[in-house]
């Protein structure tokens, strides 16, 4: 019997190969997902289930008591738990919006205008991708103390606004904008800022979402470290690390905060995934 040609199947792909591919992916996927499932499951476990032998992966009698405990536990400290949430949300929102605006402005000029110095600026930014924040942490502390920003939101927000990664991604994505589109707007008498706002920005929406999720991730997980010492300005990740430091007796509460912390970025990622993938396609470093 002649083998019927399956439509849309690549000749390089055998069925057995496809099966093994999926099998291996699921096996590795389980390694990635089980710890996260365990976090969620632990956060719903009543105390007696957290301390059973042998330990169980899934919860039997789910309860929201751990989440309730987090708020009660923290309401007895100087600062209510909602204050940590407020701080983190505020820092994240202001920092992300600021980063999006300022990085896009710069990316637009670098990608679409020819002016002396643009290669120098972009080259420096690419080099900055190659070292991490720890390298600059100490001088940053000294600079913050000199300009009096220590112990204020500004110390966390402002450096995040100029993250090189966001500028890099936005510039690479904007390069794809057709020049004729921008030229047409200029001929119609649109100023450069108008062209940027009305023509360029609406075209690069996928890149916005990518910048938002990366900036969001950084700021959302910001502990504040030595930059913030007033308790009422401290962030949610800081509160989480304090609760986790309580050790095994706080296992339920730790899991609850972990879940609160991870739900938000995962949700945003799910919503914006296709846009992010579209942007990352232009992320390559060309020679």
């Amino acid at each position, binding site marked *: 019997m002649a083998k019927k040609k399956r439509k849309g199947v*690549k000749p*390089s792909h055998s069925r057995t190969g*496809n099966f093994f*591919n999926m099998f291996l*992916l699921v096996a590795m996927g389980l*390694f*990635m*997902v089980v*710890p*996260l499932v365990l*976090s969620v499951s632990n956060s719903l476990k009543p105390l007696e289930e957290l301390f*059973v032998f042998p330990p169980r992966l899934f919860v039997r009698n789910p309860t929201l008591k751990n989440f309730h405990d987090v708020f009660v536990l923290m309401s007895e400290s100087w600062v209510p738990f909602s204050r940590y949430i407020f701080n983190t949300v505020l820092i994240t929102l202001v920092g992300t919006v600021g980063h999006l605006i*300022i990085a896009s*402005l710069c990316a637009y*000029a*670098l990608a679409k*205008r020819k*002016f*002396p*110095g643009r290669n120098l600026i972009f080259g420096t930014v690419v080099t*900055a*991708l*190659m*070292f*991490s924040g*720890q*390298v*600059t*942490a*100490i*001088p940053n502390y*000294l*600079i913050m103390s000199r300009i009096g920003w220590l112990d204020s939101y500004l110390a966390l927000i*402002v450096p995040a606004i*100029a993250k090189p*990664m966001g500028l890099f991604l936005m510039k690479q994505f904007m390069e794809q904008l057709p020049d004729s589109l921008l030229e047409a707007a200029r001929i119609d008498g649109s100023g*450069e800022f108008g062209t940027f706002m009305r023509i360029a920005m609406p075209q690069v929406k996928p890149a916005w979402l990518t910048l938002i999720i*990366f900036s969001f*991730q950084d700021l959302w997980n910001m502990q504040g*470290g030595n930059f913030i010492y007033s308790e009422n300005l401290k962030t949610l*990740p800081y509160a*989480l690390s304090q609760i*986790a430091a309580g050790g095994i007796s706080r296992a339920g509460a*730790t899991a609850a905060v*972990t879940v609160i*912390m*991870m739900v938000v*970025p*995962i949700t945003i*990622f*799910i919503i914006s*995934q296709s846009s992010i*993938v*579209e942007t*990352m*396609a232009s*992320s*390559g470093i*060309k*020679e």
Partner: protein
Amino acid sequence: MKQKLSSMLWADVKHRLVMTGKQMKREKISYLFVAPFCVLFILFYLVPVITSICLSFTYYNVLETPRFVGWQNYINLFFADDVFPTAVKNTFLFAVVTGPIGYFAALLIAWMINEIKNRFLRAFMTLVFYAPTISGQAYFIWKFIFSSDSYGMANGWLMKLGITYSPILWFEDAKYIQPILIVVVLWMSMGTGFLSFIAGLQNVDRSLYEAGYMDGIKNRFQELWYITLPSMKPQLMFGAVMTITSSFAIHDQLAALAGFPSVDYAAHTVVSHLVDYGTIRFEMGYASAIATLLFMVMILCNKLVQKILRKVGN
């Protein structure tokens, strides 16, 4: 003759300077666009790097003005500091093990995901592998999995199965700390580079594959090597930069799980050493020397790996 040449050269330079000046004036608006970012970038990225290099040649405890000490910090770091060699060794262990494994795993998994035909399944799998990286401090759960009592997952099951009879003190025993932390770091290694690979794979020109089949490409491995990888070189480059930078910066997860300082300094990396001197002992000059070394190593490693990657497929 010589004089004439130099005067011609001078005229040329002068002409170019004037042209550039004119162009700059015409492009005033461009500078307005880049100004806000550049000011912040210079203030919080460039100035700190330069400050760090300068401070590394001084003794500075924040209270007194910095005092120039020449190469003393570097000399102490290499010859007088008992912990620094351990920190370097651990950093290289983590970077060399988790860096390349993480990088190739990310590439392999991105490729395997791309082989799935169903669009939704593909998106779901991407989420599964990327989730540990974006879940913030979800790594705290490993503290529960490897907790030192019989209620922790690892101990509980080892005891239930009769492999051990008493709970193992995972994070109190130097010989367990490093393998566990390597697993945790690998668990979190599907980062920005992974997303870049996913995107790169989806955007390989379809017609290249068609041409490949004509030329006799038979299986998916040949397809990967001869068509896919060469056409996503820029993404491979970007992924390498992200991986190198983050593997030398490992510290937070380690400190949260193994404690800071950890037992026998088993989880002490160069960044841990930097945090120790910079934020606990306030020896800013010494800490700056560590930061400067870290900066140099990160840049050098990146340049080196880029050079190697450029050769791939040529």
